[in-house]
């Protein structure tokens, strides 16, 4: 900032702000004129008539604040980050061109990236289907038009607005406290009252620990923990989930929160269900289809576009999990078990000041999301049925 402006900012902040505001407005108007003028010139070059040119000018004039905003605040930074991805950039030093070094390091040498990518994929492969299943189950319940279904709809949707707020995540920390959290207290109480439930809990603990330990082995190339759990055998009576305290349980804890906050998916499913013509279901019933057969052969195919939408949006959202690692499990712990790609990207860029590396990671994440989405679109031809 020029010295005279800096002086003005200190001596008369009100005038300084006014000047900035006026300059911004003037800039917007001038850039709108430029965009509109350019559009009109192009129309003239293409031999359009006077009325067309006139409408083109004003159309682009009024659209240009968004066009210019997009160019300056979206496309500009996007291109800058594309360039930075090929540099070693550590502020305050200028970026240094290193070619593909960042990408090669990410794909071949960086164990943290492998850990974070596999953590993200775990959430996508295991967490997302559970989240979608829960959303569908609730939507099917609400579809029955039970008394007070409007109220239930609000109740199920509320967590969407609260789910990733810090206050809510801290509340979850208390709910999931392995020692005296309400969830484990309920599990213990039910287990004491109904012995088969206690056995089921232990089986669940064993299954989760085995699968998480196998994933950890894959991430680090060291299966010591998996061997230890196998050696230890089936958990002893009283075993409980350790949730965010333990590296084997932290991701299931996040999946649980994801299920609790699947209200947006539920709404999509519900609207799709409400769009199914009643006659089709009645015809199925008349033909003797059981409720399960109706669901399997009529409802699910008819709501497949909603399932597809939830799947695509869910994959993108799951690969971008951030708040949960930052607040609930504090710095991606324990032992990097909730280090997800988006979190590692942020940490590399802002905490470790490796801006070039972070930019490369963000582009790699974009490619991964893009590839997964394209695969989904390709596969969708086989199972998504549009009316």
């Amino acid at each position, binding site marked *: 900032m020029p010295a005279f402006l800096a002086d003005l900012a200190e001596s008369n902040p009100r005038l300084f702000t006014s000047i900035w505001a006026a300059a911004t407005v003037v800039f917007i108007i001038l850039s709108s004129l430029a965009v509109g003028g350019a559009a009109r010139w192009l129309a003239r070059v293409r031999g359009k008539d006077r009325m067309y040119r006139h409408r083109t000018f004003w159309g682009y004039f009024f659209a240009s604040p968004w066009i210019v905003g997009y160019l300056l605040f979206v496309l500009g930074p996007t291109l800058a980050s594309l360039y930075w991805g090929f540099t070693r950039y550590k502020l305050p030093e200028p970026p240094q061109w290193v070619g593909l070094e960042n990408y090669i390091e990410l794909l071949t040498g960086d164990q943290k990236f492998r850990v974070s990518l596999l953590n993200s994929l775990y959430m996508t492969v295991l967490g997302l289907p559970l989240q979608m299943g829960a959303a569908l189950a609730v939507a099917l319940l609400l579809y029955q038009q039970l008394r007070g279904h409007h109220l239930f709809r609000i109740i199920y949707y509320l967590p969407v607005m609260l789910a990733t707020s810090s206050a809510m995540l801290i509340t979850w920390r208390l709910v999931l406290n392995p020692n005296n959290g309400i969830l484990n207290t309920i599990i213990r109480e039910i287990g004491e009252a109904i012995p088969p439930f206690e056995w089921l809990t232990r089986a669940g603990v064993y299954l989760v620990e085995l699968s998480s330990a196998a994933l950890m082995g894959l991430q680090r190339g060291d299966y010591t923990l998996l061997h230890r759990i196998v050696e230890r055998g089936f958990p002893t009576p009283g075993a409980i989930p350790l949730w965010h305290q333990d590296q084997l349980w932290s991701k299931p804890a996040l999946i649980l929160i994801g299920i609790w906050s699947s209200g947006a998916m539920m709404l999509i499913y519900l609207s799709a269900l409400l769009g199914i013509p009643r006659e089709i279901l009645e015809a199925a019933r008349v033909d003797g289809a059981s409720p399960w057969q109706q669901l399997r052969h009529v409802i699910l195919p008819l709501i497949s576009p909603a399932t597809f939408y939830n799947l695509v949006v869910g994959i993108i959202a799951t690969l971008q999990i951030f708040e949960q690692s930052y607040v609930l499990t504090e710095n991606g712990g324990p032992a990097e078990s909730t280090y997800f790609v988006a979190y590692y990207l942020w*940490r590399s860029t*802002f905490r470790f000041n490796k801006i070039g590396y972070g930019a490369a990671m963000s582009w790699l994440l974009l490619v991964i999301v893009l590839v997964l989405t394209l695969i989904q679109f390709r596969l969708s031809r086989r199972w998504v049925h549009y009316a």
Partner: protein
Amino acid sequence: MGKKLLILVAVVSVLALLLSACAPKPTPQPTEVPTEAPTEATEAPTEEATEAPTEEAVTIQMMVVDYIPDRTDKWLEEEVVPAFQAEHPNINVEFIYVNWGTLDETVQGYFAAGQGADIINLGSEYIAEYGDRLAPLGEYFADWDGFAQFLPSTLDTVTWEGEPRGIPWLTAPRAYMCRMDLLENAGWDHVPATFDEMVQMAGDVTVIENGAIVLKGFQATGEAATGGRGDWQEFISLIWTLGGTLYNEDGTPNFDSPEARAALQYMYDIHRAQFPDETVADLPEVTGALLASDMLACYWGNLWGAPPTNDPIWERIELFPGFTHPDFPASSPVVQVFNDWLAVPAYSEHVAEAAEFLKFLGSAENLNTYNSHFGSFPPRQDAWFGFVEEDAVMQRMAELMQEYGKGFADIRETAQLRDILMTEIPLFLTDAQDLETTIGNIQSQYTEVLEEAGRIP
């Protein structure tokens, strides 16, 4: 049409000016400052710095991370600043409050942008990270008598290339505290004197019921966040206790030393003494100090995490510096001393004014008042009056700090080291990898970090 557009531009500009005039009232200018200083804040040093601050109206910003909401902030804004402005009516001070969770990003952002707060609140280990980007303040402090009053060990924390880059603001030593009544219940009539005794005591005291710990023998302060799976700062303290160092003379990491191995093995042993396997739930989160909850027998940390020093429970708590290891002749208890401090970034355009405010904040009275909020020690010895003198616990901690104190400073590339240790230590403690793998990972990863940062060739 050109004329119409011109009119349109003019009208919109006038509207913009009018709108901005409706903006909230800006920060009061120095002329609005009350002329009478409140009684609790103290007088500023009267000495003039070599480079006198400007006489023009200036607003400086101070970023604060160590504060208690509604207490420290009120004291700063309502008492300290008015008192300072009574001496310097042209210097206004604004505060930006941040938390430890976002401190790194905030400071990185300031330095990246080359602008930000004129005074920043840094943690004990930060001099190695930011020293070369902070303004040297030697000339401003040259004729300030108060500067000589700071404890030499605290000045190490703020000194870079022989020049002070700020002032220590808060001193928080970490020592061991044991509830003797809980130890006696487990058959212990004395606090552990060796590493092995600590492990033995932790196992003897710990009680597990229904898969969860209900009474724990020992916990380090950082373990509340890791579910009892180690504290990276305790690891460093243990290495020092065993007589080890973090770096070799050539600047390479020394985490594969016998001392580091022994420290890590001890952390494993004490963990395993309390968690027979990894199906046991750690202590719950509690409000207040765990030591006062009857759920924890021994604690390593500072007095913030301990019961209030006027709590009668202190009659049952023994405060001690640590223990030794018979296999390491150089081992000696270490009280890790954290000195949070205030620095002036080199990008600041108001270094002289910021230094003036630092001198004011650094008076014995102000440091005493500020540290009384936290139960921490003023880093100036002539500020050890009032709550420091009158409190037996503080007195005992002061003795330990003087005899066994070692500053938690010069930790290079702290953020990345913290990440490495917070990943590798829990993996070892939970049997996910063995000692040699853990040591190897720490050493190789940290070496890579230091190389990349250009700290070693």
